[in-house]
Structure formats: C-alpha cells, structure tokens
C-alpha cells in the first residue's frame, strides 16, 4: 500500500464532504421551492396567536407543505412545553 492510499483511507475526501453538503442543501431548497409564497408569513402569524395563550419558543412550530397529484397537505406541528409540576 502506497503512502497515498494510506491518506486516502484515513481522511474523508473533500469530494464526499461536498456531495453530502449539497444533498442536504438541495433537498432543503427544493422543498421550500414548491411551497406557496404565503407560508412563511402564515407561520409567523400562527406563532403569534399561539404565543398569546401558551408560552412556546420561536421554533416550537413547524409547518410543512406537501403536494402530490390530487391533493395538497398542510401539516402544522406545535410542540407544547412540559407541564409545570403542580404546586402543593
């Protein structure tokens, strides 16, 4: 085994790093490309309403939009904070 081969095995190649980063990025950008343009604003307003009643963080809400041939699905997820232990 040459010295070169040794380095190739021991270190992850920059090309595979590039591929990994691109796959994640491109998948993300593609999913947001197909979303309706009102989605970010709607997400913001929904969060404001929820925060009137429940103390949740900025990232407690996630909205995803999916589209297939005959239907569009809007999925809304809100993570509620842990219940406070009752005071005795």
């Amino acid at each position, binding site marked *: 085994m040459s010295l070169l081969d040794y380095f*190739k095995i021991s270190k992850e*190649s920059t*090309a595979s790093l590039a591929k990994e980063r691109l*796959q994640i990025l491109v998948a993300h950008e*593609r999913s947001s490309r197909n979303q309706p343009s009102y989605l970010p604003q709607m997400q913001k307003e929904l969060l404001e309403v929820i925060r009137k009643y429940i103390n949740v963080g900025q990232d407690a809400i996630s909205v995803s939009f999916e589209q297939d041939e005959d239907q569009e699905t809007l999925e809304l997820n809100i993570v509620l904070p842990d219940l406070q232990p009752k005071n005795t």
Partner: protein
Amino acid sequence: MARIIVVTSGKGGVGKTTTSAAIAMGLAKKGHKTAVIDFDVGLRNLDLIMGCERRVVYDFVNVINGEATLNQALIRDKNCNQLYILPASQTRDKDALSQEGVGKILDELRKEFKYIVCDSPAGIEKGAHLAMYYADDAFIVTNPEVSSVRDSDRMLGILSSKSRRAELNEEPIKEYLLLSRYSPDRVKLGEMLSVEDVQDILSLHLLGVIPESKSVLNASNSGMPVILDEKSDAGQAYADIVDRYLGEDRPHRFIDEDKGFFRKLFGGK
C-alpha cells in the same frame, strides 16, 4: 420544426459562452442552419469567442427597437455558412430586452433556422429569464464544484416554473447536463465531485463531460469555437455532445483518468 436551446447555469464563469459557441458551430457543421444569440446585454462576449467582434454593426436591441432588420444584424460565421450570430447590445439599459420583443425575433428566426442557441447571461435577472423563457431544450452547464451545482439546481427550479412551456402547461423543457472543467485525476484523488455525484444530486440526463483543457483558452484567444480544434479533448467532447443531442449513440469519454481512450482499449501503458 425549429428548436430553441438555452445554454444556462446560474453561476458565471462555468463555460456557457464557450459551450454556446461550440454547440452552435457543431450543429451548423452538421448541416443544420443555426443561429446563436447573445443574451448578455451590456456584457457581450459571444462575438469575441466566435471571432466576429469587428463585424458587429447592429445588435439584438437594435432589432427589437426596429432600428435594424434581423438580416442586417445577423453576422454570418466566417468558418461555416450555416451559422449566424446575433450579438448582444452593449447598452447599460437593463430593460432593453422585452419579452414580446424577444418572442417576435425568435418567431422570425424559427422560420429560417433549424436550431436557435440562446447564450444566457449569469444570474437569474431579466436577461437570464428571457434567454430561457421560450426554450424547448436547456443545456445546464455545471462545474463539479459546490456553488455551481447548487446554482444549477436553482436554475432547474426556474426552468420548470417560469418558462413559457411551464406557464402554458405544455410539455416541459428538456433538460440536459453538460459537466465542464472536469478533471478525472482529481476525482480519483477524492478532490472533485464525480459525474455520478453530480448526477445523484441533480438527476439530469448527462449529455456529456467536457474535460478541463488548455485548448479552451487557446480557442478563445484566437476567436475560434473550441469544437473546430478537432484534435483537442474539449473539441472532441463538444463534438460528441452535438452528436448525442442529434440522437447518435456516442459512448461517454473523458470521464476516466486515462486520457488515451485507445491506449486503454488496447491495454497499452
């Protein structure tokens, strides 16, 4: 039926104009009457790559504005009488091109030409938008490099939503990948994305790989599309690409590090 081909990439400097010049010349040399249009208003360079910069009298914007006829503005190529060049204007007015104006010129060209190659400017501004808007086929020029691949994917999104075919719900634009500035030896060392890597990410039909080549600079220095340098690897790669586009069966070359295709075939050194 005429076909309109857009050569696009999103990112600058990946080889759009080199590719436009090469494939337009290749198609014309195959006997198809071809026009190649520079859409980079304000930064025209196709004329320089085609070697006709001193013969530009009228340009694309002059024709749109009715200051010249299409026949006055089209420059016949000095190497091939089937090839005509429509240069971009050097005006700094960003709105010099209009959608109707471009549409009218393309309709007129369609009557006379078999292929119309639109050399897109970089970016996603008006010029790039108009270059791809009327296209039937898109050649996506990509370098095996992160920013180029990302921008190509962005361009694919635009082609599938903002083109005339998309707006009219017609059959979508046919998209082809042209991977340029490829270095097989760097791919082998794990320093460069491979053809398969780029295809995995973009899922595009590969029309051809153009190797990183000294001949490209030599060709642009002398104002001769690189496809005319038949001995060069890049010239041969573009010739293969034209043949494949026209439906001929050409095995892919320039993907493996051993440059000598025949040497490899016959098991030489």
